[in-house]
């Protein structure tokens, strides 16, 4: 339990300490402007809408994936996770290729004489947020479904339960347990959204708080305002966390041996509906990726050597971030499962609500006497990315760790299984899936991160930074090729970790 508290304390110090450092450097907090309040309102509104849509749309997709078995299902589940780990800039290129003025969708709408849709403005922000977060929601809900022991479904089948009864007795209790967390996770991601709003928001009408923080740094050099906004963002998120604690009711499903499979899903029209849901989700999530790939792939081989060395640097950083995240995640989740108190879990979720810009600047201020920015650039980026990925990993890991504790805690204690033996024989095998998922997420998010590195940069650019340099040098075609490389690497890293965790599946 000691380690859990230590990691939680370190995280809290990191998030709040950096905020404090920024406020201290500014000589206090500043008053917010009318436009900041507008940004706040828009942020809350779009985050709530994005979270509701993502969670609601994810339920049928997750259910269809949970109860159907077909060739390539495992691959599809992995593929559907792709948007969440895509570097934002790449994803936006893909969304524009599909939903933009000259995109596939509008071409088709024009072809059949229907009015066009616009991806620019608030609807573009929502669309992009659902695109990014539907995969996260599906994955988290799917894990909820898989956490229901197969015996339960077999018992339901032997009791002649219809789909309605299964929904009432098994699925709804599970969803009640999982959905608040899913909604909250998406809400918090969208709360700190930045690049999406800036690229697709269409202007000041769709400014988010994180964007206002960036502008306070860049345009006004107003650290005080940045710190105030960072504080507001944290206050909002902590409020949402507290709210979610009140509605989340843990479900106790009892122990199961997951060696045997669940019975097949219901037939009839439900089979067709499930197929349609899966096809629609796959189309929505994968078409933008295919389009980016198609436009950039031909030139990947011709990318200059610098891009490849940046890619290698990014890979090493991503793997380091992932190792950190996995370790911290495991320590925190086990502590929470053993009842370490709410604050440990809240500390683990804290990075989600922190502004990476405030975090980076705060670290810069705190560490400037110890190291030069160039020396700091890569370690700080690795550390921040590891922290930022932590909440996502925890969301998947905590329920599994709690179930593990509830189901095997007493048994392990009666066998006097503890320490490394317990870790090796019980914890790691049972938690391999969420751990692999956490590591994969961390690696992929670190791979695509651009926010923190631009503050420090230095002479060792990462791949996303190289991509921007290409764009800034008018080399849009090379940038498209670098996007494909970035996407492929993010995806490969996620796949390797996630696959590692699902060896038993």
């Amino acid at each position, binding site marked *: 339990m000691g380690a859990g508290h230590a990691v939680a304390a370190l995280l809290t110090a990191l998030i709040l300490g950096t905020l404090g450092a920024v406020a201290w450097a500014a000589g206090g907090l500043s008053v917010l402007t009318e436009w900041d309040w507008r940004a706040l309102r828009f942020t809350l509104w779009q985050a709530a809408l994005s979270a509701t849509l993502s969670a609601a749309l994810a339920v049928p997709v997750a259910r269809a994936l949970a109860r159907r078995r077909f060739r390539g299902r495992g691959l599809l589940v992995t593929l559907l996770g792709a948007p969440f780990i895509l570097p934002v800039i790449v994803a936006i290129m893909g969304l524009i290729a599909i939903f933009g003025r*000259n995109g596939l969708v509008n071409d088709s709408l024009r072809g059949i004489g229907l009015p066009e849709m616009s991806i620019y403005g608030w609807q573009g922000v929502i669309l992009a947020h659902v695109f990014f977060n539907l995969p996260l929601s599906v994955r988290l809900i799917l894990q909820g479904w898989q956490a229901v022991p197969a015996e339960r479904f077999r018992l339901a089948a032997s009791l002649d339960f219809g789909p309605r009864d299964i929904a009432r007795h098994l699925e709804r209790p599970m969803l009640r347990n999982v959905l608040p967390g899913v909604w909250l996770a998406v809400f918090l991601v969208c709360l700190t959204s930045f690049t999406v709003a800036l690229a697709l928001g269409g202007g000041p009408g769709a400014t988010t708080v994180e964007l206002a923080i960036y502008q306070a740094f860049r345009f006004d050099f107003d650290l005080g305002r940045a710190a105030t906004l960072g504080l507001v963002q944290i206050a909002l998120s902590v409020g949402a966390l507290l709210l979610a604690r009140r509605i989340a009711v843990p479900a106790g499903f009892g122990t199961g041996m997951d060696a045997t499979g669940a019975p097949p899903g219901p037939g009839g029209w439900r089979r067709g509906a499930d197929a349609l849901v899966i096809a629609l989700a796959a189309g929505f999530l994968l078409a933008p990726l295919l389009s980016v790939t198609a436009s950039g792939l031909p030139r990947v081989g011709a990318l200059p050597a610098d891009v490849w060395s940046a890619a290698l640097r990014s890979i090493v950083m991503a793997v380091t971030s992932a190792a950190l995240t996995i370790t911290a995640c495991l320590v925190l989740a086990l502590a929470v499962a053993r009842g370490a108190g709410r604050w440990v879990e809240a500390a683990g979720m804290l990075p989600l609500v922190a502004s990476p810009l405030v975090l980076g600047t705060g670290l810069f201020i705190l560490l400037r006497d110890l190291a030069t920015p160039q020396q700091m650039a890569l370690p700080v980026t690795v550390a921040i990315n*590891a922290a930022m990925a932590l909440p996502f990993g925890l969301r998947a890991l905590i329920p599994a760790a709690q179930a593990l504790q509830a189901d095997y805690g007493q048994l392990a204690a009666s066998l006097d299984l503890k320490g490394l033996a317990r870790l090796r024989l019980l914890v790691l095998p049972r938690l391999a899936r969420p751990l692999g998922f956490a590591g994969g997420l961390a690696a992929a998010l670190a791979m695509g991160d651009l926010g923190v590195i631009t503050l420090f940069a230095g002479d060792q650019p990462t791949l996303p930074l190289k991509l921007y340099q*290409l*764009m800034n040098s008018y080399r849009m075609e090379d940038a498209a090729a670098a996007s494909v490389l970035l996407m492929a690497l993010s995806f490969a890293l996620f796949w390797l970790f996630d696959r590692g965790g699902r060896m038993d599946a």
Partner: protein
Amino acid sequence: MKTFLIPALLLASPALAQDRVLTIYASDYIASEWGPGPKIEEGFEAFCDCDLQFVTGDILPRILMEGEGTPADVVFGLNTDVTARARASGLFAPHRQDTTDMSLPVEWTDDIFLPYNWGETAFVYDETRLDNPPASFADLLEAPDDLKIVIQDPRSSISGLALLLWVKQVYGDDAPEAWAKLAPKVLTVTRGWSESYGLFTEGEADMVLSYTTSPAYHIAAEDDPTKKAAIFPEGHYFMAELAAQVASTDQPELAQQFMDWILTPEFQQTIPLANWSLPARLPVEDWPEVMRNLPRPDKTLFYSEDEAEALRQPALDEWLRAFAG
């Protein structure tokens, strides 16, 4: 903490052992292999007996935060419209160059900030996609709303800020009405120039807020003469990138040597085709052909730094009101 920093620290390259290091804070694109940085580094190191190191990032926020403790000796790539705040910091020393004979369309009397390149804001279009480009700013405002343009956010982009001042200088007190007419044509507002330009080359927008020199890239590097800057008789807003030496430098001689080098023909010749902008001091006959042949605006607009600083917030409020919808 220690354990997880160590592997990451191994990634950082060891500092070079050379004593004479000139640390230059530069905008990110400058030091990339496609920017002017590598040529500048090579050229300077050929005679300085030193190691020139570019440190990239957001120059101004960073140096303001570091104050006198900054390791920077020179900053390279500041923009004209933010010099007031840079100057007020007192962090910079005079450049000691004669700026009477520049190839700039405006008079340059600043003794701290030295321009090394320049250009003007312009809306760039593709003539194969836009048959009747607006012939003036007024034309652009009156164009049908299905003419779509992309611009940059003045709060995060220096070219976006230049557009703010451009509109203010052309329309003065009528700027809010001008923005109201322009707003429906704005497809989206992006964080930086590169996102906007990407949308334009993807064919999403008919025109993009960029520079009068942008077509030169397409002509010289892609052999594509179809990209044009619309030249407006109302005038175009001047933008220059500036260098300055840091007063607290521990390499004052090197820093001065670098400043002395900036206006030499050798340095200036590297600018046009690496930075895709115009050289600050080079006779027009020495410009690359592609730059010489670009259409030039008759009128260049520019606010003094004090005017720009005073107008920044009110002009931004007008812009925000027009776009908040």
